[in-house]
């Protein structure tokens, strides 16, 4: 009898451990610490997400570039206002090291996004978002949410909701002004493979 109780307790502990591990594993599919509280200056949580056509993209591979990370959805009106500005700003500042990355939070991005991409003439990579990555970035319930990430991989600014073209441009300039950390991956001259794949 005592032996059975002991086994039962061990099983409960093991199962509890599995539960905790499963949650952690799920969160770490998008690795790095979750953004809580102070966002400015915090390292941008790393993640790997696929593009609409299935190519994996890792955020940390863009280290050395200034990244505008924009969470959006096709059903989001204000997002639709910003997207042509992003396209224009990518062309304007791309040569200076800007990479704009869209993260679609649509329920079925593979169905909804390609047509939208064509209609809106999006020429920067759009990734298939998920709740884990959204949670890493502090939850993105209201869209759009935009993170400006400096060349050093640290967040310069977080903006929730639609803002003016000039405010977006100011955020980009701020991100571009951040020098890249010399000890970081020297990828500033590398092109973002997914970006080129999607751009065409």
């Amino acid at each position, binding site marked *: 009898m005592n032996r059975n109780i002991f086994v039962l307790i061990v*099983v409960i502990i093991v199962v509890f451990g*599995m*539960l905790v591990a499963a949650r952690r594993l799920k969160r770490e599919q998008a690795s790095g610490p979750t953004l809580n509280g102070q966002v400015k200056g915090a390292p941008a949580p790393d993640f790997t997400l696929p593009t609409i056509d299935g190519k994996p993209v890792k955020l940390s591979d863009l280290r050395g570039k200034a990244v505008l990370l924009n969470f959006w959805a096709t059903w989001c009106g204000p997002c639709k206002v910003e997207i042509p500005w992003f396209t224009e700003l990518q062309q304007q500042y791309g040569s200076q090291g800007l990479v704009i990355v869209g993260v679609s939070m649509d329920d079925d991005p593979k169905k909804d996004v390609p047509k939208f991409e064509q209609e809106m003439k999006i020429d920067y990579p759009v990734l298939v978002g998920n709740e884990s990555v959204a949670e890493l970035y502090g939850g993105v319930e209201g869209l759009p949410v935009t993170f400006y990430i400096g060349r050093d991989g640290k967040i310069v600014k977080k903006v929730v909701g639609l803002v003016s073209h000039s405010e977006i441009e100011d955020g980009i300039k701020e991100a571009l002004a951040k020098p890249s950390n010399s000890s970081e991956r020297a990828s500033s001259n590398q092109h973002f493979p997914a970006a080129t794949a999607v751009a065409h």
Partner: protein
Amino acid sequence: MRPVFAVVLALSFSGVLSAQDTLPLAKVQRVTVAPVSTVQVRPGSSAPVRMTFRVMPGFHINSNKPSSELLIPTAVKFEVPNDISIGKVEYPAGKEYSFSFSPGEKLAVYSGEFAVKALVIATKEAPRGRFRVRGALKYQACDNRACYPPATVPVEFNVSVGKPAPKSVRRNPAQSPHIHK
């Protein structure tokens, strides 16, 4: 002891699986529904129902016919008991709205209070009694700067099926007044 052990083990593993399926984002309700009056209907006939919704101040939701096919229309769906069905659902027209920074793009939205009307139909065979109709309004809300994921608000009402209509005795069949001229 062994059956207890097995049950605990099974429940624990199901806990692991369900924890992996849960979504972390909390849903905030931006539309509320007013209590709906009981619908009185006779077997073989229909009666209207009016559902009044309120969009929280500062928010708007797409109308049933939004200006773009990419936008999610507001729509109500019902689960009806046997012998009850819902006929045509009528939605109000949306009000014109534009986001700041994009005054040229006009959207058709609901804000404040709006009502959706529908027809409740009882079959000829519907028994007398009270039925519960359950439904949900699907909507997608925005404020003037941001949009929020699609959500649903439950809507429920009672349908009271009365006696069948008495068979009319045709003493004076309806006549056109012209006949008397």
